[in-house]
């Protein structure tokens, strides 16, 4: 970590710890304590919302589970502090898993609804199961003793502060690790993620369960902090507030989470004090107006774009003078803020400030130190030795039917180890369908597929990827917002045996695996000539380089069989020459290649065997020259008898 960043963090933490010594009013101490507790929830929620990109409306429910676990254990069983905290984390994680396992089979609005249902059920159960939870009466707690010493207001504050900092460190480490990359990958391109061995479903569940753990910890601290908990706190309003905080502060940012927490705690207090709110809203309106004027003058925005924010903020200020109290309109204001943030502040306040000050996202720093030291030599593993020429993949009478359409009609293929096998045919002949069947994206209607002695039928894409089949995609499926290096590192996910604890504690095992992955990834990037662009975001790379990056990522799986889906599409002639040499080098490492292509010169110059599909059936097969002269093939492409 950079010297001045570290200094800033130390200063920040020190300021936090010194706060209750300077400001002794318990009201403010409690306020800041609540902000920190909410921040812990948001660290976890950000993993789900910011990284995996899912909307969860159930985190207030998870928060409530944490609070009540602690509350019930303390009042019914007299549990000590540490037991209560750990139990809260554990129980909430279990609830999180119970929710995630069914819920995460679906995405988007369905997931949102399901989590909302969960949150509502939790609230109802807490309310009704009064033999356990005292129902609407609530549970009273007092500040806990720690190691024999009764904690007072200030000391509990320090406890919360320490836990928050620890939570921050853990989250930070998780998100910088292969786990964090997996989370981002599954949002960037779920299909590519599965085909690189990162099971989308499984990692969505992990992300959710981890976030549940955080919510549980925060909930238990909340119980002690408030000294009284009741069911109606953990409602829809709270869950929406959590979401608002994450997107308003800024997704994928720890500072954003803390900022968001501060806003959702302070804003209702602000709204309760009308006079203060009037000052603030006028100041805000002036600020927005000034920003708009400067922006328009500098040509960075237009009147149209700025119209709504300007009018809106002035209207808000006007409203605050007209109304006597803003408390009743609290929710509407939250709603309006949400609308505003969703359309105008998509990257949150942190993102807005970053782009305004032209700062860059902190880049993965561990990699740069290793880059200099990486060894030379080819990072492409030599595929497991086997008899060259022996059969590595067998497809037998594969039928793939979609409704009435037979995309693949009893196609049989035999792929020999160490060869480059071309698969060609007119548009719609079934080539990509075959690819998708081989990698588990489609399950064949009938037929057999054997690879390395095992059947492929019915296995998940990530399972197939991990057993030695890697692929690239016709429409490039890179993880756009991640760097080239990170994209390849996702392909190396399989090389990590480290689990959550290794990552959180930065054990030697994790350190080793992490360094090895960086070295290997750089080696692969060097192989395709992209080493200089390692830290460039994948979506900013030129098209030709993106296709090469996909190949490097696929090679990271250490495959025995590499499927290339139209790798030359959209490439210029010199790029195509380069591509041909790479594919030959890959073959020289003993990796078998299946190549779908339309560029006939590529196919003919490289392939040992070529199979031709038309209307989902194989119409010819043989060495390139043979196939090129085959009448049926000519007819399939040109139609009718050629002149």
């Amino acid at each position, binding site marked *: 970590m950079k010297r001045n960043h570290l200094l800033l963090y130390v200063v920040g933490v020190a300021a936090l710890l010194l706060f209750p010594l300077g400001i002794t009013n318990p009201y403010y101490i409690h306020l800041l304590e609540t902000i920190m507790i909410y921040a812990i929830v948001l660290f976890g929620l950000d993993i789900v919302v910011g990284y995996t990109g899912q909307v969860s409306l159930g985190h207030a429910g998870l928060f409530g589970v944490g609070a009540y676990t602690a509350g019930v254990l303390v009042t019914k069983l007299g549990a000590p502090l540490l037991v209560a905290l750990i139990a809260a984390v554990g129980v909430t994680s279990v609830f999180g898993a119970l929710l995630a396992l069914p819920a995460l089979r679906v995405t988007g609005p369905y997931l949102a609804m399901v989590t909302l249902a969960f949150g509502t059920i939790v609230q109802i159960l807490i309310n009704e199961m009064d033999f356990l939870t005292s129902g609407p009466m609530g549970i009273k707690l007092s500040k806990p003793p720690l190691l024999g010493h009764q904690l007072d207001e200030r000391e509990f504050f320090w406890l919360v502060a320490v836990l928050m900092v620890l939570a921050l460190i853990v989250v930070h480490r998780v998100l910088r690790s292969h786990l964090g990359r997996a989370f981002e990958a599954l949002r960037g391109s779920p299909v590519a993620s599965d085909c690189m061995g990162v099971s989308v479903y499984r990692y969505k569940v992990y992300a959710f369960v981890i976030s549940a753990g955080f919510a549980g910890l925060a909930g238990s601290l909340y119980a002690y902090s408030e000294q009284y908990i009741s069911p109606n706190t953990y409602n829809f309003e709270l869950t929406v507030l959590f979401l608002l905080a994450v997107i308003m502060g800024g997704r994928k940012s720890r500072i954003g989470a803390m900022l968001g927490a501060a806003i959702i705690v302070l804003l209702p207090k602000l709204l309760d004090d009308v006079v203060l709110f009037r000052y603030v809203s006028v100041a805000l309106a002036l600020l927005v107006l000034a920003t708009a004027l400067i922006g328009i003058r500098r040509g960075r925005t237009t009147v149209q774009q700025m119209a709504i924010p300007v009018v809106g903020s002035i209207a808000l200020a006007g409203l605050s003078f007209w109304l006597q109290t803003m408390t009743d309109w609290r929710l509407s204001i939250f709603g309006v803020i949400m609308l505003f943030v969703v359309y105008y502040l998509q990257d949150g306040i942190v993102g807005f400030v970053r782009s305004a000050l032209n700062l860059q996202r902190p880049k993965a720093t561990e990699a740069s130190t290793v880059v200099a030291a990486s060894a030379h030599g080819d990072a492409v593993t030599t595929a497991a030795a086997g008899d060259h020429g022996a059969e590595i993949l067998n497809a037998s009478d594969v039928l793939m039917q979609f*409704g*009435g*359409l037979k995309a693949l009609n009893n196609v049989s293929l035999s792929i020999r180890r160490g060869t480059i096998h071309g698969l060609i045919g*007119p*548009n*719609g002949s079934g080539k990509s369908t075959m690819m998708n069947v081989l990698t588990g994206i489609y399950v064949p209607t009938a037929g057999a597929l054997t690879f390395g002695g095992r059947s492929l039928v019915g296995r998940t894409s990530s399972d197939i990827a991990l057993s030695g089949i890697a692929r690239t995609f016709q429409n490039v499926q890179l993880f756009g917002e991640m760097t080239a290096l990170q994209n390849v590192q996702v392909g190396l996910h399989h090389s990590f045996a480290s689990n959550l604890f290794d990552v959180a504690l930065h054990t030697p095992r994790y350190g080793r695996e992490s360094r090895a992955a960086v070295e290997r990834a750089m080696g692969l990037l060097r192989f395709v000539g992209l080493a200089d662009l390692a830290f460039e975001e994948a979506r900013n790379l*030129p*098209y030709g380089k*993106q296709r090469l990056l996909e190949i490097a990522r696929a090679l990271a799986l250490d495959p025995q069989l590499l499927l290339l889906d*139209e790798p030359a*599409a*959209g490439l210029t*002639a010199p790029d195509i020459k380069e591509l041909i040499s790479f594919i030959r080098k890959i073959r020289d490492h003993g990796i078998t290649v299946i190549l779908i292509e*339309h*560029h*006939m*010169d590529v*196919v*003919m110059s490289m392939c040992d065997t070529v199979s031709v599909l038309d*209307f989902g059936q194989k119409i010819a097969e043989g060495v390139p020259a043979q196939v*090129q002269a085959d009448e049926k093939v*000519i007819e399939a*492409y*040109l*139609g*009718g*008898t*050629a*002149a």
Partner: protein
Amino acid sequence: MSADTKMLTISNLFAGYGKVQVLHGISIEVPKGKVVTLIGSNGAGKTTTMRAVSGMIAPTAGEISLNGKRIEGMESYHIAKLGLAHSPEGRRVFATMTVSDNLILGAFPRLTGARPKGDVNADLERALELFPRLKERREQLAGTLSGGEQQMLAMARAVMLNPEVVLLDEPSMGLAPILVAEVFRIIERLKSEGVTMLLVEQFAAAALGVADYGYVLENGRISVHGPADKLRNDPAVKAAYLGGSSSH
């Protein structure tokens, strides 16, 4: 080309999908009453051209004119109202609606005042006469038709607009040879009725058999163009599809 009215003019068209630019400045003219075909191998940009003309994608640069009116960059529903009918790649019929409902929807702008109404019901019957297979199945759901029948439905639906120009995008795709022959017979019939058509096809031989004029698209550029019968025997055409000595 002669002084016929140019129904559809494409000038120096550039188009693509985000980073991938597919068309690098192509120019095509479709005179009134003629059939012009655009042929080329996969990935050459044929469907991209169609989509840019009918407004499904916005071109990056260049001009497109329909009957003298500039249409590039317009929304596809607006272009349809101006009289350009597009039978898209993959047919894309309305699967849960009947054959006759699909056809009626083809005349939507006529029924809602955007185009001269004429006699929609009479045109519906005429379309069914032209496509006997569809007539037998007029109340059948379009999703249950075979590939060939869906292709005919898509073409008939396009004609229902009473359009100035019809764009036919790969009508032969995925069809068995017998059905391909039938589709091209229908295109001949439409040609004899004076329908102006721009036909994009993978099957060069069949397309050149029915067209008056042809353009060959290679890697987003027109490599060769001329009267269809001349192109039919041009070795450059064959090379463009199967590789070999000439182009690369």
